[in-house]
């Protein structure tokens, strides 16, 4: 048990350290990308345990992310003031579920509370994940990869082809999400530091959840499935049920990240649902190592930040494709795995001995 939370404390220390460093050096603008990085990291944390423990590849996580983001954006930008059921709107407003306001031109607005939209987004994603996963989890390998890729493509096409979701433009003008106690998820410069901490606290919370999950009965069952699925089944573990729950859990993490990032950036576009995004998440897990939570978080922080700052330029997608091929050819255990280091040391020795 000793040292189980040490990496978590190191992570929190780094988060605070980086914030202080940006404050001292006057580079607080980095925090915006770091906040976005945190939300993408949340997606990757879910994918990491799904790929690592259940051995299930998902090429559709951008789809779950987009469902979360789009649901939140759609529900919170919908104007209910001009709706056909004023009495229902009034009732919801009395319950505090609808936020009244005025738009740029002074017209009356009545928008759903972001909290309600968030819950709806997560619930919808969980529902879709269950529907997708029940048939799909009977499949393995190629079939699962193609099925999840297909799911991702469907989400992308639907989002791109539906006028109500903004088609190619996406949804914008998404209101801020006030969590209470002066904490608001929004892109304003005044909220930059707060949002940075909120996002990374969520990542830490996600990591903590995963850590505790892995130490529980469910975690041991998942580890058994990871080792040998047939043997796990023979020991009486309901492998299908565990895999289903894990898949839904990781889909929910993706949806939550999507919803919050949408509030943070104030909008979402179809590119968030693109296949390339899903592949990107898989690439990050490949670098960090499957089932290697801390490796994946570090890989995600570095790669997402570099990508968001635009360091890869026009080669952005190519970099992630190259990373995938390189990692799977030379270090399938991930960069930060013991096996990789052992292999590297052996290689250096061999070269040195010649």
């Amino acid at each position, binding site marked *: 048990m000793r040292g189980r939370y040490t990496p978590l404390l190191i992570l929190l220390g780094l988060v605070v350290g980086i914030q202080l460093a940006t404050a001292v050096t006057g580079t607080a603008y980095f925090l915006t990308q770091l906040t976005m990085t945190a939300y993408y990291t949340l997606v990757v944390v879910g994918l990491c345990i799904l790929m690592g423990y259940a051995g299930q590849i998902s090429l559709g996580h951008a789809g779950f992310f987009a469902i979360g983001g789009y649901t939140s954006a759609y529900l919170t930008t919908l104007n209910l003031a001009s709706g056909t059921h004023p009495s229902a709107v009034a009732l919801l407003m009395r319950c505090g579920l609808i936020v009244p306001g005025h738009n740029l031109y002074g017209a009356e607005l009545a928008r759903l509370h972001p909290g309600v939209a968030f819950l709806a987004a997560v619930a919808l994603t969980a529902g879709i994940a269950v529907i997708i996963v029940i048939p799909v989890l009977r499949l*393995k390998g190629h079939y699962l990869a193609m099925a999840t890729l297909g799911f991702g493509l469907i989400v992308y096409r639907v989002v791109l082809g539906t006028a109500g979701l903004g088609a190619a433009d996406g949804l914008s003008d998404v209101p801020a999400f006030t969590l209470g106690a002066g904490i608001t998820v929004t892109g304003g410069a005044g909220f930059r530091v707060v949002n940075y901490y909120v996002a990374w606290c969520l990542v830490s919370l996600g990591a903590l959840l995963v850590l505790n999950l892995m130490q529980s009965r469910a975690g041991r069952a998942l580890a058994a499935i990871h080792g040998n699925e047939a043997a796990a089944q023979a020991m009486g573990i309901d492998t299908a049920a565990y895999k289903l729950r894990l898949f839904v859990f990781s889909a929910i993490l993706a949806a939550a990240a999507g919803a919050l990032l949408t509030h943070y950036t104030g909008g979402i576009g179809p590119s968030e649902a693109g296949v390339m995004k899903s592949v990107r998440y898989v690439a990050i897990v490949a670098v960090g190592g499957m089932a290697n939570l801390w490796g994946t978080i570090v890989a995600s922080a570095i790669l997402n930040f570099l990508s968001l700052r635009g360091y890869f330029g026009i080669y952005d997608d190519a970099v992630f494709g*190259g990373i995938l091929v390189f990692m799977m050819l030379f270090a399938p255990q991930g960069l930060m795995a013991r096996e990789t280091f052992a292999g590297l040391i052996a290689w250096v020795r061999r070269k040195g001995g010649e």
Partner: protein
Amino acid sequence: MTSELLVQYLLSGITIGSVYAIVAIGFNIIYNATGIINFAQGEFVMLGGMIAVSCMPFMPLCLAVSCAVVVTALIGVLLYVCFFRWLKSPSVLRLIIITIGISILIREAALMIWGEQVRSLPYFSGNEISSIRIFGAYISPQVLWILGVVGIMVLLLNLFFAFTRMGRAMRACSANPTAATLCGINSQGMVAIAFMLSAAIGALAGCVMSPMTQTQYDSGTPLAVKGFTVAILGGLGNSTAAAAAGLLLGVVEALAVSILPVAYKDVIAIGLLLVVLAIRPTGLFTSRQAGTLKEF
């Protein structure tokens, strides 16, 4: 719906369906030889079209198409030699991720070389407005080209696998690589040929469809997913059934477009994939008993 309109939809469905069938057969050839599903299969089709378009200013059409097929076939062999040849018993997950990575690299390279512009070859005979009347429906002569080329390709492939020495050696390798090697068959060479063949037929399909459907750097992925749908519908590894399934999917898609908005065209095909995977992952034409023997 009038009968003329129905014939029109059916013909357009058969046309695009035959292209799906070729992508599916490409999947099957590599799958049979190696057990790998090559996610970069759609990229071969895109490369075929793009290379032929680039060759057009320097040579006549038939030479440009041959050139595209040869170059893409070489790229196929190169992929095998560079990436798959020296992997020792890799896991399925690893292979999937490698082919996905390769497909992205090819796509990004195509973006660098050809840009985002949509390109197409000229019509093989006639032009955009020339048409032939069949059963009251008007079709472009290119449709006949597509159907003819695809039909001949399927026929030749069947003959190749059934009667030639090399085709039989490839089948032996897919049935049991160790036994084939003991019989003196160069099984690694056969796998290289499988990659080459798969890339070549993909490129040829990409060339004949280019005048009608046009080619863009990112047109590979949807084709790969649909080709895979077709391969599954026909039962993975069974090429004749894949041809039938391809036509089926093409017709379903064409009829769906007559009812639903065009933007959702891909949704139909992929939704069908999910349904088939859920209900009958062994394919429409394979018995359930035979299917349970396979690894999914």
